[in-house]
């Protein structure tokens, strides 16, 4: 285009090289280092596959993956089921001029840090927290419920975050639907329920899948929420990874577990790849 002489040809490379170099040096290289580390023995001697085989042979590690997959699946399904009607109400029932504000409010706590958000839920769910005080105070229960430090607490914390995220993506999806689809369905004699089930829902399905995939990836890799809310009674994969570093300084095993976790995410990506094609408008 403007390539004139050597300077012209060097310029584009000078522009893209810093970003490429950064990604290679601080993203690709660390990943390779981690992969290499996962094949070395913790005590420093030689190559071994024991880090990887430990995962398959040790039931406790295997259980962490099962727990992670169960929690992630429950969180994804519950979040979609809660967020879809909410996004629909925001997009269809709220007057146009208030929609932006309503949406901004709906995702405001999204912007607090992970740590603070999980801690806030601890305040709500703890033995002497708001919910238990309300339950025992009203005489409904005589004993406080054990919610904090259980799987339920982890799930509540996650669902809170992902309802906000999914509301954003599904809302955007509903707004992109051209109203003429609905008019056409109505002209052809479909009632509102049929229009929704046969027109709106199928057309927003790709958006739901994108949101569900995001939920899956972010949920299965998160350390904070299970650690603060779920405690150590039941470990999820990220907790298991961090435990290898924190307590034992076992980088090779932590690397191996991280790579296995990443492989699971990649499989999930391939499974819904056909839904995730992001087309340029």
């Amino acid at each position, binding site marked *: *285009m*403007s*390539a004139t002489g050597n300077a012209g040809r060097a310029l*584009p*490379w*000078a*522009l*893209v090289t810093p*970003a*490429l170099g*950064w*990604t290679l040096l*601080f*993203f*690709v*290289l*660390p*990943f390779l*280092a*981690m992969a290499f*580390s996962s094949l070395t023995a913790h005590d420093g001697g030689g190559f071994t596959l024991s880090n990887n085989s430990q995962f398959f042979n040790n039931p406790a590690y295997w259980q962490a993956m099962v727990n992670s997959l169960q929690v992630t699946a429950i969180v994804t399904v519950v979040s979609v089921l*809660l967020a879809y*009607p*909410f996004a629909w*109400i*925001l997009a269809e*029932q709220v007057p146009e001029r208030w929609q932006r504000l309503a949406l*901004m*409010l*709906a995702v*405001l*706590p999204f*912007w607090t*840090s992970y*740590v*603070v958000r999980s*801690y*806030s*839920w*601890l*305040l*709500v769910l*703890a033995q*002497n927290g*708001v919910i238990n005080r*309300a339950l025992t105070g009203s005489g409904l229960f005589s004993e406080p419920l054990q919610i904090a430090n259980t799987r339920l607490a982890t799930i509540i914390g996650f669902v*809170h975050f992902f*309802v*906000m995220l999914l509301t954003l993506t599904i809302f955007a999806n509903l707004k992109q639907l051209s109203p003429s689809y609905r008019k056409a369905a109505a002209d052809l004699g479909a009632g509102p329920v049929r229009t929704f089930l046969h027109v709106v829902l199928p057309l927003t399905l790709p958006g739901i899948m994108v949101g569900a995939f995001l939920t899956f*990836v972010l949920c299965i*890799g*998160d*350390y*904070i929420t299970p650690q*603060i809310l779920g405690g150590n009674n039941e470990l999820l994969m990220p907790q298991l*990874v961090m435990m290898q570093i924190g307590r034992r300084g076992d*980088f090779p095993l932590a690397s191996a577990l*991280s790579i296995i*976790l*990443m492989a699971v995410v990649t499989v999930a990506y391939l499974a819904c790849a056909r839904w995730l094609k992001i087309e340029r408008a």
Partner: protein
Amino acid sequence: MRALVRTFSWLYAVAIYGFIFLPVVVLVLFSLQATSFPIPPFTGPSLRWYDAVLADTRLTSALVNSLLVAILSSAAAVALGFLSAWGFARFALPGSGLMRGLITLPLTVSYLIIGMGLLVLFNWAGVPKSLLAAGIGHVVINLPLCFAIIYSQMGDHQINIERAARDLGAPEWKVLLLITVPVMAPAIFAGFFLSMTFSWDEFVISFLLTRFDTTLPVEIWNLLRSGLNPKTNAVGSLVFAVSIVLVVLFELMLLRRKPA
């Protein structure tokens, strides 16, 4: 039927808003009471614990650290993202699609794994744990974001303005500084502010890559060991306030851009 749907919609929306705001309201409310436990009944209001936060030099220096890391790493991410986006959008490079894919790849990998990789690499290379190490990690997570935002906004009409400037004899650096940067300013700001909020809130990378001097989320994490503590409520409310300011600034900028 219509009225029924409306009533049900209202009830549902109120319930979800309640669910979304419950923890935030509890957090802020119990940061405002003087007792040593942030639990009901509410006895406030008092600013006692905010004073305690501001008097705690570990927390205040962590706050300064967090701001520094957020500003510097976002500036680096936006600079690298902008230059590469300009390079890819304006010049036909061999293997362009592959290279763009490489730059956006970190978006699909969880922070824990990015942090782990850097920890292993730095450990081998003998790079000590530090704020700089965490900042490097923050650039890794924010560079793809800045690149994607800026690249998607580089349309054809900007190319034409740049061509006009070149035809009028402007050298390449002048085109960049006087034409491209001002025209792309909204996307550049969007990338910068989004990076700021992500870096400001990021925990796991900072947790893995810093030791003594650390960022605010990690320092809050350390506070959590003492269980429910009104000081944590106060500092959490402050962090939330900063995030909200960033988001509102971001919203205002989007609104200002709309008419253009």
